[in-house]
């Protein structure tokens, strides 16, 4: 592991923290008042700051710090997380994300004005000032600041570093030399007298007088005097009491501050006096040091031999002493001295001091609270490649199992043999393994949805619209490959919805609506697919305008009569774009036809329902995975094809009387009261020159997005099965009318029909014109 790897980890972690941050802020915005939500939000920014500091990413640290300070005000209930406050915070989260990305990619942040503006707003918030609209009156600032206990002086917060003394120290393993305290230009050594009297708390907190003395001795030559007169008579001894104190004379080139630094951790739990020069008061004792070993004077000052600490003195002394209580780490010195005074049984009583009992009670309370917290689910991180390899292998297994089953069928006399039973079990197991493996790659759509909230904020800002994004079903899971490809079309649709769907606040008010537009983004599972809806409560599609535009661009003839639905779906037509679209945000040279194509390339469908004055709803449905699909295996012109089951509404056995000629070449089939065009798949794919007799085949009633129903004619149905999707493009190229390939039980390749392309072709578009559709994906 080197710095670069840790840095990679840091940026990965940033992504996660940013997602946490946004989720939390959005939850707060929706009225979540859970303290843990605020804590999580704070922790996210705090972690980013911590890591960024270690890598010397100063821009990131500075911004995170200001953000964190404001969040701390919310955490400590000094700042009410109102919608206005959260608006600033959400924008700050966006900037933080930009800064992370910029740090990662080593690029400069583009929008420094934006981040500077937000820093100002955040600081205003943490100082209790009104948000800097235009100019803030100084008097108002002072007044507001005085009501805030958090920061008495607003200028504190304006400083790029911190009132808490936080200073980024870039971290580098190169610094890691075992450098001795650099003694440059050796100053003259001076003598200090240190009086150090620990309280029992010092030991309770894991500090150790002897270790402090050892540390002190590293600063220079020391004479140490241990004063034992505080030791009470045996029956009064508290085994955890602190009865000794020390007087140390030290000759050092360091200053008093360096001496105090040694006792930094102990300063609250001891009396510490550091005086320059040698202290006369204990002259006699120091003088007596020469005669310190007198065994008749146990209470006499004892010279503390620091060399004891160097090797493994604890073990040695413990072995020599019979009076040590296991598990209670008493001051080392008492170990050395306690022999004559401390009987073993006295120490053995585990009579905890009252303070310790109080702590124990407190901890019990804490533990009870902890027990209520659900344990985090256990997870491991796995390289995506490994999962993909596993998925491929399982794909092979599925094919192999099918091949095995087929050869058993071909070679067997039939009947319920052991082989057949085993095979059934194998099939069941294979299916379960496959489902489990697919579940590994299943991910909630949440991260993509989260990205959308940022898009909404940005577009809303740009267009001056007031938008609230409501998301539902973010935990709906779908294969990772689908998720990865979802972001782009979704982004475009969200842009479109804010830009074109929703009206300006003024127009909304005029129409008697709330000035705030609502965009609803939902995900749910429906019959083996994921359905994602984007609904706005805007003006709805202007059908007259769309119709007019379609006539102008020659898509429809002026006298054609179209249903409302058909008009709405014109917006997906290639080349269709209303004037506005070219002018602004959602323009960017892409129309809804591109969105439709990229959805289709994922095996998905998209449609729109619009109600004038009430808004539009885009609905897209996508397969849950791009690795397998449930298909109907059919025969067409002696070829085996697979038709995705999700596209099929029903299968029909056409009877002669239901087939009606319609003009010179077309035929319709009567299904109950309606007439549906018959499409011979064999002919469309050029597998045969003329239409086959429909009565000899089977019709698959399918529905394609915006295209109504079609009856696809195939020669026969072989059965239904789950097939593994294999790319044709990997070694060949896109084939019009074909979505992908698969491998059947006999080891041969079967093609998977692209139903939408075939339906489009049946409406007169050449198959090839849809070609760019899958090629784009």
């Amino acid at each position, binding site marked *: 592991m080197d710095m670069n790897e840790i840095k990679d980890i840091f940026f990965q972690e940033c992504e996660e923290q940013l997602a946490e941050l946004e989720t939390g802020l959005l939850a707060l915005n929706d009225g979540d008042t859970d303290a843990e939500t605020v804590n999580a939000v704070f922790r996210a920014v705090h972690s980013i700051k911590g890591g960024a500091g270690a890598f010397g990413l100063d821009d990131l640290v500075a911004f995170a710090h200001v953000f964190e300070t404001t969040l701390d005000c919310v955490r400590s209930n000094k700042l009410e997380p109102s919608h206005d406050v959260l608006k600033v915070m959400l924008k700050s989260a966006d900037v933080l994300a930009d800064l992370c990305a910029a740090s990662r990619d080593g690029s400069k942040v583009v929008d420094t004005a934006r981040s500077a503006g937000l820093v100002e707003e955040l600081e205003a918030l943490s100082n209790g000032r009104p948000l800097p609209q235009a100019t803030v009156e100084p008097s108002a600032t002072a007044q507001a600041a005085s009501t805030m206990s958090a920061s008495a002086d607003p200028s504190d917060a304006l400083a790029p570093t911190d009132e808490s003394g936080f200073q980024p120290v870039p971290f580098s393993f190169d610094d890691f030399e075992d450098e001795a305290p650099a003694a440059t230009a050796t100053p003259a050594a001076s003598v200090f007298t240190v009086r150090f009297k620990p309280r029992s708390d010092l030991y309770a907190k894991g500090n150790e007088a002897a270790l402090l003395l050892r540390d002190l001795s590293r600063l220079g030559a020391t004479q140490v005097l241990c004063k034992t007169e505080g030791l009470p008579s045996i029956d009064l001894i508290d085994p955890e009491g602190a009865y000794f104190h020390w007087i140390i004379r030290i000759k050092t080139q360091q200053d008093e501050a360096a001496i105090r630094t040694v006792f930094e951790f102990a300063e609250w739990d001891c009396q510490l006096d550091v005086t320059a020069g040698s202290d006369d008061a204990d002259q006699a004792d120091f003088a007596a040091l020469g005669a310190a070993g007198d065994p008749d004077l146990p209470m006499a000052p004892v010279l503390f031999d620091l060399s004891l600490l160097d090797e493994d003195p604890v073990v040695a002394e413990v072995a020599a002493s019979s009076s040590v209580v296991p598990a209670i780490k008493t001051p080392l010195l008492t170990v050395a001295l306690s022999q004559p005074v401390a009987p073993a049984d006295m120490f053995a009583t585990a009579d905890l001091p009252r303070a310790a009992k109080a702590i124990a009670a407190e901890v019990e309370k804490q533990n009870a609270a902890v027990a209520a917290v659900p344990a985090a689910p256990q997870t491991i991180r796995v390289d995506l490649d490994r999962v993909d390899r596993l998925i*491929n292998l399982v*794909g*092979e297994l599925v*094919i192999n199992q099918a091949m095995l089953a087929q050869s058993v069928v071909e070679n067997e006399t039939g009947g319920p043999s052991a082989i057949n039973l085993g095979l059934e079990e194998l099939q069941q197991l294979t299916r379960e393994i496959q489902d489990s493996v697919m579940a590994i790659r299943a991910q909630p759509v949440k991260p993509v949805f989260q990205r959308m909230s940022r898009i909404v904020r940005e577009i809303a800002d740009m267009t001056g619209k007031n938008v609230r994004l409501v998301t539902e079903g973010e935990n709906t899971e779908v294969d990772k490959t689908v998720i990865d490809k979802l972001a782009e079309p979704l982004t475009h649709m969200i842009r479109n919805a804010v830009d074109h769907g929703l009206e300006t606040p003024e127009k909304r008010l005029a129409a008697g609506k709330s000035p705030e537009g609502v965009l609803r983004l939902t995900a749910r599972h429906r019959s083996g697919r994921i359905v994602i809806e984007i609904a706005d409560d805007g003006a709805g599609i202007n059908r007259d305008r769309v119709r007019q535009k379609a006539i102008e661009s020659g898509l429809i003839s002026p006298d054609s009569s179209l249903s409302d639905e058909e008009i709405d779906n014109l917006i997906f037509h290639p080349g269709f774009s209303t004037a506005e679209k070219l002018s602004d945000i959602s323009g960017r040279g892409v129309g809804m036809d591109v969105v439709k194509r990229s959805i289709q390339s994922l095996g998905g469908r998209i449609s729109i329902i619009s109600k004038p004055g009430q808004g539009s709803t885009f609905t897209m449905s996508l397969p849950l995975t791009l690795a397998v699909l449930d298909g109907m295996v059919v025969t067409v012109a002696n*070829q*085996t094809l697979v038709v995705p089951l999700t596209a099929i509404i029903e299968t029909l056995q056409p009877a002669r009387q239901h087939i009606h000629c319609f003009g010179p070449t077309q035929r319709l089939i009567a299904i109950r009261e309606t007439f549906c065009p018959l499409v011979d798949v064999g002919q469309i*794919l*050029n*597998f045969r020159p003329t239409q086959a007799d429909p009565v000899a085949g089977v019709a698959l009633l399918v529905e394609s997005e915006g295209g109504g129903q079609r009856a696809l004619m195939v020669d026969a149905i072989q059965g239904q099965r789950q097939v593994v999707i*294999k*790319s*044709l493009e*990997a*070694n*060949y*190229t*896109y*084939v*019009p*009318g*074909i979505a992908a*390939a698969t*491998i059947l039980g006999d*080891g*041969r*390749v*079967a*093609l998977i029909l692209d139903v939408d392309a075939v339906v489009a072709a049946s409406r007169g578009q050449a*198959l*090839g014109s849809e*070609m760019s559709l899958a*090629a784009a994906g």
Partner: protein
Amino acid sequence: MRAMGSEMLELIAFHSGGQEFCVDVKAVREIRGWTPATPLPDAPPHVKGVINLRGVVLPIIDLGGRLGMPSIDPTARHVIIMVEAVGRVAGLLVEAVSDIFTIATTRIQPAPEVADEFNRSFARGIIAIEGRMICLFKLESLFDTHESEAA
């Protein structure tokens, strides 16, 4: 085996459209007999369809047909050479494998300029061996054509 100052190349030679071609052995994944391929709709005549090679779907291309010579009607006697180039795999349908031999790269002659630019499109060079002329086939050209067909 290494001749002075020149690399040795191991080549596999085959007949296609009545002419002899060769490719680097290192590009060959497998050689197998003809098995029926799954035809693709609207494919050019030299694309005989797709087959499954250990879980990978790849196209079978009649080399003679691809080079503008008469395409063959495959039978069990025909051979498919699975080749890999530019990260893609395809099966070359040929009449028969004729030879495997090793020569020094210095013995590869540049292909002469011809009117239809066959030399530039498909030939890496030509080799004279035992009185025969063998064209060292430019494998990438197989895959270039797919791009141009798709465009």
